[in-house]
């Protein structure tokens, strides 16, 4: 404390604004990049007044691998597995977005059977992503039990993936034009077993958290963002819906046969951490609904459209986006008519959503920053690409 700021013991308030002099308490600290609550290598520079956050600055790029540059040096087919490494907890969504984009560029469509299987796997992956989010987010806030429960149940999804394509995380499940693998014997039974298994488990998580006083105290009115701010900042996915904007790309601009299925878009009102939690819990139930309809109606037929062995899309550029678990995931691909994409731009939901962090934590406590980073649900592999 300087003499100037505190000439005597009583006048620590600014005589004009009646606010405390900030100089004495203002502190700049680094949170991360190696911090367990940042879910990867995110560094947040916090400007603090005691426990209160005055401002933040995100430093990202620690995991930058130059995916977009790599794409320019690979063929369309070769780049397909790379997209799994961006949002690695929802690899199937990444793959779906990329395959749809290249299919659009080639002007082909996957056959209906492939679409249905794609939808089943993508929605399973959405649930897996939300389960992982729930476990780690609750752990950050101090509830340890849900982590064990969610990882136990996520395992069932990963087992289905493993049986289907041999991989659990970076699955590379889809191919341009459809699927490489037919479903294994017993696929439908496994999926139906999972459909029966999960709803009571979701009840279990909700029993642990939804009415829990500590959980409510830590999440209600924390990290509030309005629907208007969400749109201005380009925030999409569960964050946007929790702020009361009823918008889901699966409904707004359906792709991959989503218009065949009946489901709701859950929304919140307050745009706080608690609402985002509720929205994601409801989304899991809606995903189950979609899977149930899809698995009961898988049509017969081919799983691969007629796609040339060597993929050479005509000259042109397209943008194709999907509703990934974290928001709008888009691919902007420019083709020069060769076997390699001229330019691939990935529009990652995590990257854009993370931009809202500053607005959401301003005036909150340091402990809330942890809660808000958790609720944005970022994956640094996707932020940095």
């Amino acid at each position, binding site marked *: 404390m300087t003499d100037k700021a505190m000439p005597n013991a009583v006048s620590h308030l600014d005589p004009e604004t009646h606010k405390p002099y900030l100089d004495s308490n203002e502190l700049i600290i680094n949170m991360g990049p190696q911090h367990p609550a940042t879910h990867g290598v995110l560094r947040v520079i916090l400007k603090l007044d005691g426990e209160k956050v005055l401002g933040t600055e995100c430093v990202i*790029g620690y995991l930058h691998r130059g995916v977009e540059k790599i794409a320019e*040096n690979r063929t369309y087919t070769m780049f397909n597995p790379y997209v799994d490494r961006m949002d690695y907890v929802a690899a199937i969504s990444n793959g779906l977005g990329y395959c749809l984009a290249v299919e659009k560029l080639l002007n082909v469509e996957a056959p209906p059977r492939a679409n249905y299987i794609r939808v089943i796997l993508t929605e399973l992956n959405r649930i897996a992503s939300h389960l992982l989010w729930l476990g780690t987010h609750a752990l950050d806030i101090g509830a340890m039990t849900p982590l064990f429960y969610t990882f136990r149940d996520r395992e069932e999804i990963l087992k289905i993936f493993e049986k289907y394509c041999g991989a659990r995380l970076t699955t590379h499940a889809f191919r341009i034009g459809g699927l490489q693998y037919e479903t294994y014997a017993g696929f439908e039974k496994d999926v139906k077993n999972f459909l029966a298994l999960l709803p009571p488990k979701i009840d279990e998580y909700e029993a642990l958290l939804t009415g829990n006083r500590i959980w409510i105290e830590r999440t209600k009115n924390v990290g509030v963002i309005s629907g208007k701010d969400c749109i201005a900042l380009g925030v999409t996915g569960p964050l946007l819906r929790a702020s009361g904007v009823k918008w889901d790309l699966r409904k707004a*601009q*359906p792709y*991959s046969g989503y*218009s065949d299925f009946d489901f709701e878009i859950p929304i919140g009102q307050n745009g706080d951490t608690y609402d985002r939690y509720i929205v994601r819990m409801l989304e899991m139930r809606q995903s189950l609904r979609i899977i149930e309809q899809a698995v009961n109606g898988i049509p017969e037929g*081919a799983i691969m*459209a007629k796609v040339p062995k060597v993929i050479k899309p005509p000259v042109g550029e397209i943008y194709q*986006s999907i509703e990934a678990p974290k928001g709008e995931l888009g691919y902007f691909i420019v083709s020069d008519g060769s076997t390699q994409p001229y*330019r691939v731009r990935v529009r990652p939901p995590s990257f854009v959503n993370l931009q809202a962090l500053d607005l959401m934590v301003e005036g909150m406590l340091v402990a809330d920053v942890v809660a808000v980073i958790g609720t944005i649900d970022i994956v640094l592999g996707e932020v940095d690409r």
Partner: protein
Amino acid sequence: MAEDVQKPASSASPKGEDKPTTGKTGTPTPEAEVKSGTAAAKPAAPAAPTAPKPVAGAAGAAKAAAPAKPAAPVPIPWSSPMVEKYKRQYGSGLEALSYLGQNYLNVDRTLLPDFLRLMRNEEEFDYCVDITAVHYPKREKQFDIVWILYSFPRNERIRVKTQIKDGESIPSAVSIWPTADWLEREVYDMFGIVFEGHPNLKRILLPDGWQGYPLRKDYDILKQDKQWVQINLGIESGQ
């Protein structure tokens, strides 16, 4: 342009798609967008073999253009009340095209940022999905800057594109869409394009001392070794 419009017909997308109609009648955008969305949802017909036979004449032209493959779809002119309005206002500075059912506007650099502001305020494109660039080193105007916009009220997507020379700057859109902040920083980081009026234009993904702009076409992929790994970390990279 009439030839161009006919070409896609011969190429035969599995379902004929909606391109030729959009070209001739100038379907308003929302419809085109919705159409392309639902088209993907419907069961796809088996590809090429069932393709409708092209009109005579168009087939020959298409074959000559691309003998190896069925003729490629080409961008076709696109028109809507919105486009007409701005064409009257800006004349040749504006070109509206549509490719595979996706609409975009080529806009002259001098119309920015006013045109972007109009898109948001007048045309309700309230969500800036993405800002990116594409490098064409052989062109005089080397860079394409692309704004991908979406309108919540209209459920419509559009792309605004402009071309600039190397070294030329572009006005920042941060005051129009706050989300442009990080997106523009990334374009700066990867292409070295300066956005005038950006509040904090510095590298975002790469370290501050990085040399060069990786997504430019003349940036060799091995340059990273020479420029960064060896100099800064003092190790051989093994590439």
